[in-house]
């Protein structure tokens, strides 16, 4: 456990090294980046191997940072943090494997990439809200440059939209947190300190503060109607970046909601609970419907991300241990599955065919040209629509079980989302990979051989195996993660807001 803070330092050091290595050669930068990501991931896994599930948060580092303001450099971890840092390590490693072909300014690309990862690790490990906020900002800035410099379709627009939303969100968070800090007597930004202070706030104060903080974080989690940055951002981003964006950055928002907004302001949350739940449900269905009619392959996946994140938010809104466990499991699951989907669409297909229009793709016999990509996408699509055997099934099931105890209507409405997910995923699979209509027995058209597509490379295959392996492992054995998550949610810190689940 105590090695976990090193993930942050390793990532930032790796970022510098990658920048320097980029001056030598692109290959050097790649290998430095991969080594960094694997090292950090290895650290998380070794921490996980020695982790004893417990309700209490384990402090890793605690030192005064800005003593006059009571800001501390306080890093801590529990089962939830652990789940998410393992996800970060996995997504970062896979993302680098799928960015192996970045040729221009490779060093800078990976430097920004690793800086982002470092920030993400920091957020998941922070126990001081101000520190968390700083890491949160660190994670957002590289995002902008990654998209603006290495992106594709309307990248400036997508990058700007993402940056605007992110900063607007963080401004709200900051405002809410500072208000709570000031109202609580300015003693400190520690999560537990603030929670203690917040217990003495009036209902009105809690309601307003919760609204600011939750909304600020929920923007980054893709909550309807503040989700539009996500699809455009995903579409514009280079593959590795959209994998991170969907894989971990959206989780930052959801994590902030769970770690900061809910436990600090339980009374405020109680007021907003139905509103959040319905926005989450609308998000699930609405994004599913939008995904059903998109013509850009990446937009389909982008909206599916929003739809799946709706389940996370709904799980949080249901506010019981089961639903929240499911929400954290869904964060992991979606991180892996969305990463895989973006890898197929962005890296395997787009960079070979140079089109993402479904209308164009359906004319290509992609299943024959890229059989590996086709199989991967079918499996990832099945995972995404919640097929048993993949991680999405236990995650969504647990959320629904939990939501049912809070409100049957919510569970009913959200379950319809599972149906919509099946519809748009099947459409995407059929149109993109199996759209080519051939008459039986006809030999492949000569045009197919005129522009042979590059075969799938080894790094791509490795990345696919990693992500698919993870989703299947958790699909078959969800206890691996739930065993960490559930005890953490039964801690007194979360029990102020979550119901049902005394240990």
């Amino acid at each position, binding site marked *: 456990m105590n090695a976990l803070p090193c993930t942050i330092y390793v990532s930032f050091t790796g970022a510098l090294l990658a920048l320097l290595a980029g001056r030598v050669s692109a290959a050097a930068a790649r290998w430095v980046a991969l080594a960094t990501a694997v090292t950090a991931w290895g650290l998380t896994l070794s921490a996980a191997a020695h982790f004893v599930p417990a309700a209490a948060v384990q402090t890793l580092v605690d030192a005064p940072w800005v003593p006059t*303001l009571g800001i501390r450099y306080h890093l801590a971890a529990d089962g939830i943090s652990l789940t998410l840092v393992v996800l970060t390590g996995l997504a970062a490693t896979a993302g680098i494997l799928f960015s192996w072909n970045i040729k221009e300014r490779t060093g800078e690309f990976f430097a920004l990439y690793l800086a982002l990862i470092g920030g993400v690790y920091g957020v998941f490990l922070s126990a001081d809200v101000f520190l968390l906020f700083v890491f949160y900002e660190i994670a957002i*800035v590289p995002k*902008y440059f990654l998209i*603006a410099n290495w992106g594709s379709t309307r990248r*400036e627009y997508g*990058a*700007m*939209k993402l940056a*605007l*939303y992110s*900063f*607007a969100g*963080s*401004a709200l968070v*900051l405002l809410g947190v*500072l208000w709570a*800090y*000031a109202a609580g007597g*300015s003693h400190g930004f520690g999560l537990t300190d603030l929670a203690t202070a917040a217990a003495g706030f009036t209902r009105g104060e809690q309601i307003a503060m919760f609204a600011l903080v939750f909304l600020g974080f929920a923007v980054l989690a893709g909550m309807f*109607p503040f*989700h*539009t940055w996500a699809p455009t951002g995903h579409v514009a981003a280079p593959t590795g970046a959209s994998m991170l964006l969907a894989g971990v950055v959206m989780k930052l928002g959801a994590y902030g909601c769970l770690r900061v907004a809910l436990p600090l302001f339980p009374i405020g949350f109680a007021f907003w609970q139905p509103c959040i739940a319905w926005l989450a449900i609308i998000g699930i269905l*609405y994004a599913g*419907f939008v995904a*059903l*009619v*998109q013509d850009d392959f990446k937009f389909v996946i982008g909206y599916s991300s929003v739809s799946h994140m709706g389940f996370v938010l709904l799980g949080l809104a249901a506010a019981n*241990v*089961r639903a929240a*466990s499911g929400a954290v499991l869904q964060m992991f699951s979606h991180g892996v599955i969305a990463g895989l989907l973006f890898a197929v669409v962005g890296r395997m297909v787009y960079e070979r065919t140079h089109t993402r229009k479904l209308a164009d793709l359906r004319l290509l016999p992609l299943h024959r040209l890229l059989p590996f990509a086709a199989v991967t996408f079918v499996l990832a699509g099945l995972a995404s629509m919640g*097929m*048993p*055997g993949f991680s999405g*099934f*236990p995650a969504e099931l*647990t959320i*629904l*079980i939990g939501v*049912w105890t809070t409100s049957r209507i919510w569970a009913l409405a959200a*379950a319809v989302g*599972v*149906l919509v997910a*099946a*519809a748009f995923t*099947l459409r995407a699979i*059929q149109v993109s990979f*199996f759209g080519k*209509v051939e*008459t*039986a027995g006809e030999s492949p058209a000569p045009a197919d051989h005129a522009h042979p597509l590059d075969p799938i490379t080894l790094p791509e295959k490795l990345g696919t195996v990693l992500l698919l392996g993870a989703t299947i492992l958790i699909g078959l054995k*969800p*206890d691996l993660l*739930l*065993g960490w998550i*559930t005890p953490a949610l*039964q801690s007194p810190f979360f029990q102020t807001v979550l119901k*049902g*689940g*005394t*240990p």
Partner: protein
Amino acid sequence: MTLSVQSVWLIPALPLLAAAIGALTPRGGRKLAAGCAIAAMSVAFVLSCLALNGALVNPAQHAVFNFVWFDLGHRTVDLGLLLDPLTALMLVMVTFVGTLIFIFSLGYMKEDANFTRFFCFLSLFAAAMLGLLVANSLLLLFVCWELVGLASYLLIGFWFHKPSAAAAAKKAFITTRIGDLGFLLGMLWLYNSTQTLLFYDGGHGCLETGVLAGLTGSTVAGGLALSTAIGLLIFCGAVGKSGQFPLHVWLPDAMEGPTPVSALIHAATMVAAGVFLIARVYPLMAADQLLEHVPVHALTVVAFIGAITALLGAVIAVAQNDIKRILAFSTVSQLGYMMLALGVGAPAAAIFHLLTHAFFKALLFLGAGSVIHAAHHEQDIRRLGGLRLRMRVTFAAFTAGMLALAGFPFVFSGFWSKEGILHAAHEWDVSQLPLYMGLTAVVLTAFYMTRLMAEVFFGHGRSHEAEHAHENPAVMTVPLVLLAICAVVLGFLGTPAWPWLQSVLTGKAIEPHSIFEGGGLMLLSIILVGAGLGLGWAVYGRRLRQKAEAADPLQTAMPGVFAALADRLGFDEFYAATVFRLNAYAAALADFLDRRVWGGLVSFLGSLGEFAGLVNRSVDEDGLNGGFDSFSEGVRGTGQRYSRLQTGEVHGYLRTLAIGFVVLVLIVVLGGVR
């Protein structure tokens, strides 16, 4: 020798292993993939027989083996295995029919380029189906249920280069998933009410008396008992999977898959899963029977849905021209009978019919496959004809299947199992309407099967393909013969004179009756079968079709009715006009909102952000320069910079925004500290 419940997982595991091997085998490894699949299925059959042997020792016992899947705080989610006569009989049926169909596929799919993939999918399907049978947990059953749906999606869409096959696969998956939605909700409700999804768990399972009493004790909206509500939601899943009205529309389209798939999935096993599900949770479905003042009993709904489906399928089958579609609608109709039996409180009769139907329907589909294969994929009965002489084995076997389906008295299995259902319907004290619907369907079944026989096997070939058809090799005909034998013999397991099957399934010894007990109803149904056969022969057999283009005699007599039936009573059009259109509108609306409305919101927020940046910047410069004049200068300068930013210098703009935020942070922080 017996197989204990702890080892029963081997039965689904073997085909799963075969599927994995098939998936990893390159296209060339045809023998390996097919060999593994058939070997796994055969061994699974042997193991199933051993399991049956064990289950018969004490038929009333439900042997279980439970384990925890995951922990949800103070409650766990458990899975488990179950071995009782119901499971064991179904296992034997599925593995036996499955093995024969796998062997038949060797011949049928010989020329297909994706032979290995086909066997991989078939094995995956078999594994999921067998897993569904051994589940002792509604959740494990649901998991396998979904995998069965997935395998059927892959197999229906196996020839995905045909647009109709791709569309049919999607339709099957989505339609059954609509039913599964109810199943899922029922499961959630059950779990939250009983804290368990295990069927049998030493007195704590959700099908055991103590828990059921709790479920019938509480009521929900409308005065329904809780068990009724949960039961009906679970029944939705069965409606979808077993092709019951109103979700039957996917089943006939599913015939786009290769014929062995139709035989295995859409006749013998997968569609039976819904019937099996209701038979499995029968204690839950029947729990509300003791309550008197409730608006409706769960089983009453099941009975009426079943009766409607039985009649509807039979009516529509009369006017179909595709040999596989006729059989598909007959499947819909027969599944309706099974549901009817469950609904009127005779689960043993339902399972008896399920078993006999599995054999004779697999036989009919493989027979049709044999015809289609010989006639080079000609499926239109109007263009076939005269195959009686050219395909003698197929003809003989198909006739046995047809007579079993039509319920030809005494000799054929279908007669006995259908008799059981009709008698149960007769004794039902709620309504006699389902009985009359069932009896009507008896006439129609005999009628449309006679039409099929006359068109396909009699007369002379009405197309080039039909004229040059010849008998298939032994790999295809031997399974037919074996199934034909079963289609006859199997009936004697459950006759009134020796009700072995009923005793085993209910776990109670049932006294043999005279065969002719309740002879009036039996006589009536014999007369009805005779009438159907006779009428069919009178219309289609006496004057055989001469040309493929000639109108159907019924069409000439009743053009309007015939067209409506041929159009499948417009269910597909109705759904297209309602559900699909609604769906399309919702999607278009959401898309519009996202592009226009939220897009506008983005622009608004964007300009808000720009405004904030500008204000901050001007305040900043203001503070540095001081004085009114420089303020004006600052505003002007900012305006100029702003116009530069507009041309796309976004980095600079972002910097501005960042600076603005830092200033804001400092102001607020320092203000807070004071």
